[in-house]
């Protein structure tokens, strides 16, 4: 079940340069939501028609609170960053499928790159097994580090080498000899491509959360497709809707 909800902002903070953490009250969405799903956030400026898709970073099922962590990238997210406690935002969600949680992996490896780090926080809470998180950052500004460390062992990579492994997430995986039976990842396409290749090489399962420009966010407009290996049951051609059939796909299902 999807809901449109007028969510009240409880708190907003800039947790890193241009990266904002937003806590909202959204009972219906929070009740139904799971890690790896996202919400559509609507702008109040009516000249921006399309919703901004933002991943669920944290859920507090008891109090109906939802956390979004986003980068102020363009006009829409900049607008959101200007709101504070008591202001409201229109949301639709929860959207998409979320990460698979019941596959029985013993040592899942959660990998987030840049603004793909936030969804790993809630995933680390829900996923059973002995969890490791690898987060890739630009520099030693390791946003969400504490939250990630609560439910998993955390390794980091930084582009400038100022913390953890110098390089990218794969460098951190190799340097620390991290062993795993399944990868769960969200981040930029080159990172996802590299992880897909790494998982294939290691013969392990791999789930990737993808991004694409969206208009409807609910599977109606076919804006957000990715290329699939086989003919998709819904579209009847070789592509899948990221907003509806994803954003999480088994790596072997899709072409990157």
């Amino acid at each position, binding site marked *: 079940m999807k809901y449109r909800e007028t969510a009240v902002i409880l708190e907003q903070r800039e947790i890193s340069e241009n990266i904002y953490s937003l806590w909202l009250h959204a009972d219906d969405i929070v009740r139904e939501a799971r890690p790896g799903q996202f919400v559509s956030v609507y702008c109040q400026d009516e000249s921006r028609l399309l919703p901004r898709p933002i991943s669920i970073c944290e859920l507090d099922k008891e109090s109906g609170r939802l956390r979004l962590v986003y980068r102020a990238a363009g006009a829409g997210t900049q607008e959101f960053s200007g709101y504070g406690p008591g202001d409201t935002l229109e949301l639709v969600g929860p959207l998409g499928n979320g990460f698979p949680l019941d596959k029985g992996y013993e040592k899942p490896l959660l990998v987030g790159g840049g603004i793909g780090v936030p969804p790993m926080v809630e995933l680390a809470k829900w996923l059973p097994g002995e969890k490791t998180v690898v987060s890739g950052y630009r520099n030693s500004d390791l946003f969400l580090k504490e939250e990630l460390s609560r439910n998993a062992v955390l390794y980091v990579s930084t582009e400038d080498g100022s913390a953890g492994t110098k390089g990218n997430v794969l460098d951190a995986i190799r340097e620390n000899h991290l062993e795993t039976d399944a990868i769960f990842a969200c981040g930029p396409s080159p990172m996802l491509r590299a992880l897909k290749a790494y998982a294939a090489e290691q013969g392990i399962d791999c789930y990737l959360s993808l991004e*694409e420009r969206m208009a409807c966010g609910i599977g*109606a407009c076919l804006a957000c497709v990715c290329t699939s290996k086989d003919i998709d049951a819904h*579209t009847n051609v070789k592509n899948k809707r990221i907003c509806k059939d994803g954003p999480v796909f088994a790596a072997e299902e899709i072409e990157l």
Partner: protein
Amino acid sequence: MMNMSVNLAGVEFKNPVMTASGTFGSSAEYGEFYDLGCLGAVVTKGVANVPWPGNPVPRIAETKSGMLNAIGLQNPGIDVFIKRDLPLLKKYDTKIIVNVCGKTVEDYCEVVERLSDQPVDMLEINVSCPNVKEGGIAFGQKPDALEAITKEVKRHAKQPVIMKLSPNVTDITEMARAAEAGGADVLSLINTITGMKIDIHRRTFAIANKTGGMSGPAVKPVAVRMVYQVAHAVSLPIIGMGGIMNGDDAMEFILAGASAVSVGTANFANPFAAKETAEGIRAYMEKYQVEDIRDLIGAVE
């Protein structure tokens, strides 16, 4: 008793609000938010004789008060449409209009024929999609070609035929007259206006197809003008669309001469937009104590 129902080519719609083709999926997606029985009709995504894979991504871009799309008429093909999508649509207490696309006259006629014994109330022929390289738009930009394809489609069609007009022409009334001469029962307009957006930071096109069809509130004044012109050029009923966000927007089209309206891009900005448009028209009628919506069609001369 207030009357909101309209009759187009012998088909009775409980109210004049429809969904615009391609923006409402197979309808089940919006059926999760509200009962589609509150709409006059749902109009499906364009369906072709065979599956179409559509264009590469990015397929859409936001523009000020509008958007560009180049989906490329991705569709699962008529077989899957009839077997899977149509039965789902039948669940709702609303009329069904199937939007038809093709590359050749034969493609269009094949789809139209396949639908002849199906529970479909009307056919909307998309001869005006600017996002597909072959066919399509050519029929929508040359009066002779439009008249010819309208005639052919009419020969094969069991249901009333709506010809959907492209705004990407010099004189929309010439096209409207051609469709009328070909035997069209209803006209719908406007389809999207060809546009372009450049990403100055990446120094490339915002949409992989380079050009895309513009829709949303930014195109509304153009659409209202064209509906007005067509209403004065032909005697066919018109379904007006282009940037309708609410009941007030819909009223502009109705007063300009549209018998019905479609809500498209607005569904993306608000999943309840089509429902709220129908409610907004009712509120307008109550406010001005209008008994019959038909008294307002084309009331601004």
